[in-house]
Every structure is written in structure tokens, then in C-alpha cells.
């Protein structure tokens, strides 16, 4: 058995009244891939920030190679060989690959950056890692997968041998995920120790040697990956039995009837969208898959009415046989459209308003006099939503800000479904939401679809698309690049084909 390279003993960290880490213990053996799983708010990120020297623990001890250490800053961690690839990459977009590679640790000759030796180091490391990046290209022109590889190269250049990855696969295509997992195995083969923070249990099972599960700020369990399975991990994660994220509930092909609810023809946006056409039938869940930033945002804005399109040739949006191109958001809502926006903090809620106010603002077209707050009625509705959706809120008058992300999202879902819409535009409906809440939201969407509501599901999580959709469109550079029907029966087999259509 190899020796322990990194240990945390009794780590406690408080933020005000919240205990983010409560006597956390962690033991990492040299040369292993160690996965740390936990829901949002379980304390994973806090623990990683402590290990990387970004924040200091209130209590407890860190040991690197058996020696007690105290980190003042990430530099101290770096000097002991601990490096981190953050969820949001720490790259300077408008500097070149080479500049980012050496930033902060520039080799110099007489005070001038020694680009030659830096380039040689980069080339050597790229060769070792079997990867190729254009050294003089600006980072903003790299794909997400390439940026991630640059982050790994940066750590190797800084001689890190404990590599921490924070949710590394969230933004990758299936092909890139495979390549990434392979590179983790390569790194392990070269003697590196890897900490993998993730919520994707399949990936954990695919690469990890050891798994530590965190829940509510505590480490609840640490077990060998070979002795467990996804089901057990999911149960440990949530504290009760749940359906795995990518497990499909509705497995039969739906028979759809009736006139299309939404018919979009040659929709073109100012910048992104190029002649997008599709339609959705009642009861259908149409998934839009694609790498983020390929026109999804514009599509949601134009369908929900936040942006009204200019008169481009032949473009039209028909909702229940009405031409709604020039309608504003209010009119569309009143006619039976609803929207879960992708960014709940900026578009979904006013964080400093309470739940009653937030609920009313998003649903006021459904009240008789939509200019006066029907106080009792809305309060009762919010109370009902709180119990129906198991929203954890102190009262209907709690500020939206006081709720966790998952609970905020449930408030939005309850509000948008309140008016019995005919069409729901659901953009990233479960982003940053914990597994329990995801299950609840997915169940609700499936139930409503069963009752005849059409759903346009826009998600960058392919698992989510595959587990809910009846039909899938792939959007790339603002165009529909592929269509897949009968997703219910083909399910997981489509993963790689869809992935290919994304790039």
C-alpha cells in the first residue's frame, strides 16, 4: 500500500453561522485517483479551497507527505506540488497559450521573458501528454476542452504532483469527457495523485480508485470504488434512495396527437441564430442539446419574448396557430407560454424580494386585475408550492436570496407551472441544483408533459436531455445540426452521435 500524500484531520470552517466543513477527515494515497462527491452545499468546494490554500480552516490540521502544513496562499500549496484546475478556468482569455502557460512563473534572461525556453517546455509537456495546442493563439479561440488541457499543462509546468479537479467535465462534450478521463489515467500512470470533485457518478466509477462522500459539511463515508456502485453512491450522497440523474423514467415512445403547440420557421437572430425551424406537439418534450453559447440563449430570448426579432425574411413564430412574433412577454404568458430562464439570479428572481412578491411578478397576468397584488391569494399559492415542492423556506416572506439554489429553482418552477401553460420553455432547469431537487423538478416536468403540456428543454447537460426528451435537436453555431427522434427507446446509444453533432 502506498503512503499517504495528503491528509486533512478534523477540518472545520465556518462562514458566519453556517458550518461549511464540520470536522472533515480526508486521506489521499499517493498515486491514486480519489473522487470527492457531494451535493451542492455539501462542503466540497470549501474543502478544496482549504487544500489549495485559498481559505484557511478555523480548526483542524493539514498534512502533506506526513508533515503538518499551514497555507497562507495558493502559492504555498503550489510550492508543495498541489495544483488545482478550477471549474471556471483560471486563464486570461486575451493572452496567448504560451503566455498563460508561464504566467506568474515566467522564465527570464536578464529580466526579459525567455520565450524560447518557455516554448520548448510547452512543447515537451505537450508531447508527454499527447496533446497539441497552438502556442501563439489567444486562449479565447481555444475550445473548452483545449482550455482544460492548457490548465493541466500549466500545473505540470509548475511541477504539481497532486492535481485537484473541480467539476471538470461539466462543460465538455461526451468525446471530450472520454479524452479527459483517459488523460486522468495517463497522469496517474505517471505517478500523479488526483483529486476529482464531481457529481457525475458514472465518471467516478470509470476512473476513481477511492471515493469520499460528503454530505452537509461532513465526510460520511470513504470507500474503494471497486466495492461500490452508482446506486449506493447516489444513496449515500442524498441520504435516501433516489433515481440516478441519467436514469430514464419514461421509456416508451409517446403517441402524439393534435396540432403543434409551437411552430418556429426560419428564425434568425441578430448575431447567433441562423434559420432555425422546428415544431413541438402537445405532450412532447423536445430537447435542445449543444455546447453553451451556440445560440441557445438567443433562442430562449426570442421565444419567450424578451427580445422581439426584426423582420427577417420568412421568419415566424406561431403559438397555437397565432402569429406571436411581435408579442411582448406579457402577452405570450397570458396566451399560455411559460419560461424557466437559464440564469435564476438575473432573470428568474429578484433576490431581495420575498417569495410572495417573486411569485406574483412572474405570474401576474393570470390574476383578474394584474396591477394589484392579491395578497392573500398569492400567499396561499406560495404556501401550497412550498409544501407541494418541498421547498425549504422559513416562510412565504423569506427573501429569495435566503434560499439555496435548488429551492430557488423550485420556486421558479412552481410559479411558471401555476398558470397551466401549454408550452414551457425550460432553459437549464436543473443547473446547480442538488440531486434531490433535480429529481423533483424532472418528475414534475414529466407529469405535466403526460397531461399534455409541451416542453422545450434547453440544457447543456446531455444526461438531462437524454433522460427527459422524446426528440432531440442539436444546435451548433446557431443552426440545427442534427435531429434525433424516438429518444425514449434509443436512449444512451445516441450520446456519441449527439456529441459529434455538437462540434
Amino acid at each position, binding site marked *: 500500500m502506498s503512503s499517504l500524500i495528503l491528509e486533512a484531520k478534523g477540518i472545520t470552517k465556518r462562514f458566519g453561522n453556517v458550518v461549511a466543513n464540520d470536522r472533515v477527515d480526508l486521506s489521499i494515497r499517493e498515486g491514486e485517483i480519489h473522487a470527492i462527491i457531494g451535493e451542492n452545499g455539501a462542503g466540497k468546494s470549501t474543502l478544496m479551497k482549504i487544500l489549495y490554500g485559498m481559505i484557511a480552516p478555523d480548526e483542524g490540521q493539514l498534512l502533506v507527505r506526513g508533515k503538518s502544513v499551514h497555507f497562507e496562499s495558493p502559492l504555498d500549496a503550489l510550492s508543495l506540488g498541489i495544483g488545482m484546475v478550477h471549474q471556471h478556468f483560471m486563464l486570461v*482569455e486575451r493572452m496567448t497559450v504560451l503566455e498563460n502557460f508561464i504566467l506568474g512563473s515566467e522564465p527570464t534572461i536578464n529580466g526579459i521573458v525567455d520565450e524560447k525556453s518557455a516554448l520548448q517546455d510547452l512543447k515537451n509537456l505537450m508531447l508527454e501528454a499527447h496533446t497539441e495546442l497552438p502556442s501563439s493563439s489567444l486562449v479565447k479561440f481555444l475550445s473548452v476542452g483545449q482550455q482544460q488541457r492548457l490548465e493541466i499543462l500549466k500545473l505540470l509546468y509548475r511541477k504539481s504532483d497532486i492535481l485537484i479537479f473541480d467539476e471538470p467535465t461539466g462543460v465538455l462534450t461526451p468525446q471530450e469527457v472520454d479524452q479527459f478521463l483517459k488523460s486522468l489515467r495517463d497522469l496517474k500512470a505517471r505517478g500523479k495523485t488526483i483529486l476529482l470533485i464531481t457529481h457525475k457518478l458514472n465518471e467516478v466509477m470509470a476512473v476513481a480508485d477511492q471515493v469520499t462522500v460528503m454530505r452537509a459539511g461532513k465526510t460520511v463515508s470513504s470507500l474503494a470504488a471497486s466495492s461500490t456502485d452508482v446506486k449506493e453512491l447516489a444513496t449515500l450522497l442524498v441520504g435516501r434512495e433516489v433515481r440516478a440523474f441519467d436514469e430514464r423514467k419514461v421509456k416508451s415512445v409517446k403517441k402524439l396527437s393534435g396540432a403543434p403547440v409551437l411552430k418556429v420557421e426560419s428564425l434568425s437572430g441578430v448575431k447567433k441564430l441562423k434559420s432555425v425551424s422546428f415544431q413541438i406537439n402537445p405532450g412532447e418534450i423536445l430537447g435542445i442539446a449543444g455546447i453553451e453559447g451556440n445560440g441557445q440563449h438567443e433562442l430562449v430570448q426570442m421565444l419567450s419574448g424578451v427580445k422581439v426579432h426584426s423582420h427577417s425574411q420568412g421568419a415566424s413564430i406561431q403559438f397555437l396557430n397565432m402569429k406571436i412574433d411581435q408579442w411582448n412577454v406579457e402577452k405570450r404568458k397570458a396566451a399560455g407560454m411559460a419560461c424557466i430562464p437559464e440564469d435564476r439570479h438575473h432573470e428568474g428572481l429578484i433576490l431581495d424580494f420575498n417569495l410572495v412578491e417573486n411569485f406574483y411578478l412572474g405570474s401576474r397576468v393570470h390574476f383578474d386585475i394584474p396591477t394589484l397584488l392579491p395578497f392573500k391569494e398569492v400567499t396561499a399559492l406560495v404556501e401550497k408550492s412550498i409544501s407541494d415542492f418541498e421547498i425549504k423556506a422559513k416562510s412565504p416572506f423569506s427573501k429569495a436570496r435566503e434560499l439555496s439554489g435548488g429551492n430557488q429553482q423550485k420556486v421558479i418552477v412552481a410559479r411558471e407551472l401555476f398558470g397551466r401553460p401549454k408550452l414551457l420553455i425550460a432553459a437549464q432547469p436543473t443547473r446547480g441544483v442538488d440531486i434531490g431537487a433535480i429529481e423533483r423538478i424532472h418528475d414534475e416536468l414529466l407529469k405535466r408533459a403526460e397531461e399534455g403540456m409541451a416542453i422545450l428543454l434547453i440544457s447543456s447537460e446531455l444526461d438531462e436531455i437524454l433522460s427527459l426528451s422524446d426528440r432531440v435537436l442539436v444546435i451548433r453555431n446557431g443552426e440545427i445540426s442534427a435531429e434525433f427522434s424516438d429518444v425514449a427507446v434509443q436512449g444512451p446509444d445516441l450520446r456519441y452521435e449527439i456529441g459529434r453533432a455538437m462540434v
Partner: protein
Amino acid sequence: MNEFHFSFVDLLLSGLRLSTPLLFAALGGLLSERAGVANIALEGFLLVGAFSAAAVTYLSGNPWIGLSGALAAGAMIGLIFAMLTVYAKADHIVMGTALNLFVVGALPLFNKIFFGVTGSTPSLELDQRLSVWFLFFVAVALSPLIWFFLHKVPFGYHLRSSGENIEASKSLGISVKRTRLIAVILAGMVTALGGAFLSIAHGSQFSRGMSAGRGFIALAALILAGWRPIPVILTCILFGLADAAQIVLQSYPLPDGSTLPVQWIQMFPYIVTLVVLVGFVGKTEPPQAIAKND
């Protein structure tokens, strides 16, 4: 025809001369903004440079000492601006405005203390002044030097990364605050040279409001150049020419023999600035972390 030809060369030369303070200020702004500190205090930096250059030159009788005085005073005002924005984390735009107003009020006070009047410093003799062309070439030579500094020296890397991505810089152990502090001090020194140009090279004294909005015009030139040190030479010359045209046009009658009111002609450089800003702001990309505090 002959007369026209003469005036054209005259206009060109005058434009180049007048681009000098703009270029110094724009390069100062570049150092500050590429590091992430939005700098509308250039106007105040220019005035501080102009006053200190004229005052020190008059008191010492030597323009080189005056120039050093301007550099020192520029470093001081840069330090003050950096302390307020980088360390006290004040809003950059509000602080820039406040600093400009402070300078406008404070300089006459200093003038009164040293010279007994609030309006202007005593006139300098001709041999106590620096050559405008010397300073013009210094400014032009400074541009590639700053490019080299930004792209080939470790501190230049850190300066750019501090202006683009605070989190990434910090994760690599770069002190964003310290980097910005140094960048803004340098900005104060470079901009102060532009002020010295106005008071001890182009002019022979410091007078109130002598910067005449050049700090803001320099900012426009900087935006138009996309915050890049070589193109900024050209955009500053463009605005310098607009300034020169305004002066030349004042002495030319309209075809019918009448003259335009001087005030209309004097608006010319500012109208050019306005047109450029309306047309180009948002078209060139500013540093990503500009005006964001660490």
C-alpha cells in the same frame, strides 16, 4: 496656392506637436487601464504635471529639474489615485472625477503659496524651456517601449493579466493590488510628462485649465486604438491634427470674406472626439477586468 501649401505643412507640424501631450496621457491611461484601473483622472494628472514642471523650472531655473519635478509629482498623484481605487476600493469613475475636481481646486492654492497669485506661474525665459520636438520624439519612442514592457517583461505579463482576469492572476500568485499600484504610479509619471509639455515646452507657464480636456481626448484616442500602444500614436496624431486645424482655421476667412465665430471653430476637436466616441466605443474591446476591484 503657395500660401495654401505653406499652411498645410504648418498644420501638419502643428498637429504633430499638439499630439504630444495627448500621446503621453494616452500612454499613461494605457498603463493604468490595461492593469484594470479605469482612469478618467488623466486630466488631473496632466494639470499636476503642468504645474509642477513650471513651478520647479521657475524656482530652479533648469527645465530638466522641472521635468524631474513633474515625474515626481506625477508619481505622487498616481500613488494617491491608486490608494483610493486599488486599496480603498472606491469606484474608479467616481474617484477619477473627484480627483480631477480636487486638482482643479488645489493647484491655485499651491500657486498662491509659491507665487502669491492663484492664476498662473511666472513666465519662463526662452532658454528655460524644453524643445517641443524633443518631447514629441520621447512620446513616440515611449510607445514601442511600453509595448515591449507589456509583452516581454514578467511585470508586463502581470500587468495585463491583472487587467484581464483578477481571479486567474491571484490563483497564480500574482498580487493584483501591488501590480495595479505600480501601474498607476507609472501612469501618473508618463501623463505628467504630457503636462510638462504644455507648461515648459509648448507654453511658458502653467495657467489654470490649460489641459483643456486633453486628458479626456487622450482617453478617446486610447479607446479608438483599442488600448494598444502602437496604434495609439496614430489616433493621438489624429486628435492633434484636429486641435491644430482649429487653431489654423481661426485665421482663415470664409469664401465670402466673413469669419465664423471663434467659439464654433474651437469646438472642432471636441466634436471630433464626440464623433469618434459615438462611433467606436464598444467596437474595440476594453480590458476585461477594467474598473473591477480585487
